């Protein structure tokens, strides 16, 4: 081998070794979101499940806590996945939708409108929970650029080691255990809570200086609507039935007007709690901010009926291939619920 060829070969080897070590260190230092802040791993759990869903939910905690795709399948044979993440802002939902359409074309996309109240990024911490574990694509780059706070740098998302280098002395067993894999801690995106903390006192409804949603929120809602239109997907707007933070009538009016203007369906479930059968003394795990399992079952049954009767979704329970997958999921889901309830009862007895 000539000297020049040797040089090229050794240079290549050095570069490859460097890249491997750099990538490994970077992966090690990134938070794994498996036992702490597990909501940060929701976005990545989708990729193994991508494809074949009739319904995709987008939005913040008001989707992943309040709707159970398992119940939608059990009662109506609807295949659904929740691509919700904490504090998912409107532009984030748009980019998650854009990414989702690369994997599948759902018949219905359900967008929870709670995030319309935020026209600025809330914090880097929340950004990270949605962005860090998203696969690289133009959608991820777009989301980063749209979401960054002033203190953040794009490069720190490209090279997470720039952001997390100081975690060297905070590494735990979790960082090694989950270095190369992700554990599912949702059921098609549904975050299961079986605890009950009844709704009690709530803060007074604050007067706001301005109830008008920001232009940027409408801009991205427009983009989401057009994206759905291009893909032949129906966009449905929903507001989850939380007691707090307040969903002001001025907010509601703007969404109603928007839905009416573009012929979209909008369901404000906060106004339908009686019809749904929700009882906030037992159907919430945190005093009325989110539903627990019993609340999510009620809401999913109610919404499933709307999706089937009003939006023509197909019952897949007679499809052997789908039934086989979902029956297995349901078994795990039901077993997990039993275990959680047993653990809670054991804890009470102690």
């Amino acid at each position, binding site marked *: 081998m000539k000297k020049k060829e040797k040089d090229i070969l050794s240079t290549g080897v050095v570069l490859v070794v460097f890249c491997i070590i750099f990538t490994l260190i970077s992966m090690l230092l990134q938070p794994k979101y498996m036992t702490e802040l597990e909501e940060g791993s929701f976005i990545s759990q989708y990729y193994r499940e991508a494809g074949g869903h009739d319904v995709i939910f987008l939005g913040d905690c008001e989707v992943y806590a309040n709707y159970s795709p398992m119940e939608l399948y059990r009662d109506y044979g609807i295949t659904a996945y929740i691509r919700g993440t904490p504090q998912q802002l409107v532009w984030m939902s748009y980019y998650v939708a854009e990414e989702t359409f690369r994997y599948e074309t759902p018949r219905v996309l359900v967008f929870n409108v709670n995030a319309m109240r935020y026209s600025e990024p809330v914090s880097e*911490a929340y950004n990270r929970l949605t962005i860090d574990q998203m696969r690289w694509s133009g959608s991820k780059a777009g989301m980063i650029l749209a979401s960054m706070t002033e203190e953040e740098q794009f490069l720190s998302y490209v090279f997470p080691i720039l952001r997390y280098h100081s975690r060297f002395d905070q590494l735990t067993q979790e960082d090694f255990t989950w270095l190369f894999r992700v554990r599912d801690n949702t059921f098609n995106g549904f975050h299961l809570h079986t605890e009950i903390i009844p709704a*009690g006192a*709530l803060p*007074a409804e604050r*007067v706001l*200086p301005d109830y008008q949603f920001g232009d940027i929120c409408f801009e991205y809602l427009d983009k989401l609507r057009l994206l759905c239109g291009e893909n032949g997907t129906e966009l449905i707007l929903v507001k989850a039935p939380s007691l707090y933070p307040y969903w002001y009538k001025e907010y509601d009016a703007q969404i109603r007007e928007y839905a009416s203007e573009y012929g979209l369906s909008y369901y404000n479930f906060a106004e339908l709690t009686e019809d749904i059968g929700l009882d906030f003394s037992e159907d919430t795990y945190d005093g009325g901010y989110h539903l627990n399992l019993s609340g999510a079952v009620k809401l999913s049954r109610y919404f499933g009926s709307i999706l089937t009767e009003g939006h023509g979704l197909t019952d897949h329970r007679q499809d052997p291939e789908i039934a086989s997958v979902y029956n297995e999921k349901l078994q795990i889901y039901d077993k997990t619920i039993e275990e959680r309830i047993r653990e809670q009862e054991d804890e009470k007895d102690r």
Partner: protein
Amino acid sequence: MKRIGKALFLWGIVAVLTACGQEGAPALAQNINIGADSAGNTAGGDSKEASTEASDQEPSGEDGVFRFAYEGAMLTPGEPVDLSGLPKYSDVAEVPSCAFGGNDKIYNFKTFELTAYFDADEERIYSIYFIDPNLPTTEGLRLGDTVDDMKSFYGDSYETEGASYIYTRGETLLILITNKDIVTSIEYRLNK
């Protein structure tokens, strides 16, 4: 090879310098509060009814901060919560903190709400939000008063954000929201 070595070395330095620029970024876990694990708990109280009488203690602003004087107690955003001088609250709610990690506690005194945050396990006052239109600020402003009344009490040194008028004293704010020149919201708040 030497060139590559140099390039990698330089890249390393750039990376470290860039990373150091991130030190000021918020600590991640401390700033996240996903839903409230405990919320909406209530605690009753009936020993002393809340009223709308302002205190005659040291007036607000003498030491460069806004203070809310109420029935002999002086409430200052940023200072520790001392409930001993106040009437018993009627309810307390816990909500995810807007400005800090963890939960805020919101004490309802019927005429106003006091929001407390936790600083190293110590409860401190974040804000005081007026509910009762008869409750005056330390200087005498009430819900329903006009913008002219507001200016006569607090002067013209304010900032505006839409329909909000914001007065600043030290680390404290007095935030007044108006609708058609009528004060519809009064809140003392820590500037954080």
